């Protein structure tokens, strides 16, 4: 273990010393709509062969869980890195009361690591996902220069609506901290793992980061991924219900 830092009720551990190359990007993947973010991040970690360099835990806000990965004991929120990309990945959803402190902890950590742009990946639940073949991707960004890149891959600005969950808090906190942040959302199922949406989402995200990520495997192995992700999806659904995720379906009264 290289170092441990306590941030409120969260403890951040780095297993080794590492520096990010510039420009550094952070990708945050929390279990959310259709597990789009975590499936995509898991794919990036695999294809870019990212190294697990740290993790986060909270004995107050997270279930008493140890992740065992390749015989190693790991923390519930895992941190992977390579060159200029830092990926924060969790299959466990902290309770909503942990979101404000978690957002601050993460943004503080990203700043310390010299991250110049925070990216977040999520699904956007659509009721007719069963029928859809062409999935639309939307974005919300505080960094105007990425708009051209995202429009270039067919993504559209998310103009009106509600966001619920950890990404909503991250966006608000990033705005307060004046940190460039982009949320990329792709139409997906709410309650089923959606690797097809993850593939589409990754196409947009990888363009922003400036890396090439082959998503063919995600599409080809979509059914196998859905099969394996059943437990993660099942575990996250009560959290999504509790945080009133269905608000995202609502139409705002005032634009």
């Amino acid at each position, binding site marked *: 273990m290289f170092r441990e830092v306590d941030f409120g009720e969260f403890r951040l551990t780095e297993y080794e010393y590492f520096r990010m190359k510039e420009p550094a990007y952070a990708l945050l993947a929390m279990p959310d709509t259709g597990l789009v973010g975590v499936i995509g991040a898991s794919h990036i970690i695999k294809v870019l062969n990212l190294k697990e360099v740290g993790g986060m835990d909270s004995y107050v806000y997270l279930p008493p869980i140890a992740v065992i990965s390749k015989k190693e004991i790991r923390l519930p929120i895992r941190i992977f890195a390579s060159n200029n990309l830092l990926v924060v990945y969790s299959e466990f959803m902290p309770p909503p009361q942990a979101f404000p402190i978690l957002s601050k902890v993460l943004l503080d950590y990203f700043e310390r690591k010299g991250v110049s742009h925070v990216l977040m990946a999520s699904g956007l639940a659509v009721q007719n996902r*069963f029928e859809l073949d062409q999935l639309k991707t939307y974005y919300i960004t505080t960094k105007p220069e990425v708009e051209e890149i995202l429009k270039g891959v067919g993504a559209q600005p998310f103009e009106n609506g509600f966001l619920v969950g950890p990404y909503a808090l991250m966006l608000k906190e990033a705005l307060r901290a004046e940190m460039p942040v982009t949320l990329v959302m792709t139409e997906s199922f709410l*309650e089923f793992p959606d690797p097809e949406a993850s593939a589409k989402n990754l196409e947009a995200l990888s363009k922003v980061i400036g890396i090439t990520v082959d998503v063919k495997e995600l599409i080809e192995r979509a*059914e*196998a991924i*859905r*099969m394996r992700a059943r437990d993660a999806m*099942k575990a996250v659904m009560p959290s999504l219900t509790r945080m009133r995720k269905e608000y995202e379906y609502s139409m705002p009264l005032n634009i």
Partner: protein
Amino acid sequence: MNSDEFEKFWRRIKEIERRMLESFREEEERILRELEEVRKALTPSWSYEGYLRPLYTVRDLGNEYVLYIDLPNADQGSIDIRFKGNAILIRAKLRMKHKFSEWSGQGGETVFTEYRDVITLPFNIDPSCVSLRQRKGMIELRIRKPKRV
């Protein structure tokens, strides 16, 4: 009270009765749905007997229920859905066998060969009121509610 007034009064009583019964039914459905959520959360997604329980969701659209059942890697030709009272019995063979040890250190030598589950609805299902569609390893069941649900 003359007969017109009595008739009016009686209609009001009947209307209040109808509304109360409706809200009892809605509340009963809500409680049953919540109990079902708890049952789902506590039931493991697989069994040592070699089957997986599929993810599914139930939406109440007013005059019908729509169920989506995710059956990735299932042999589409083997999907078997039956109705018994208020229960939907689902079985589908997997295209290939999967060992639990491929995914986790738990489960020993358990080998999965099929999906199996029972989903219950708050009313008896008339199979003639059910329509089914399959797409990309997922099933959509539309079940029309009986008149008095």
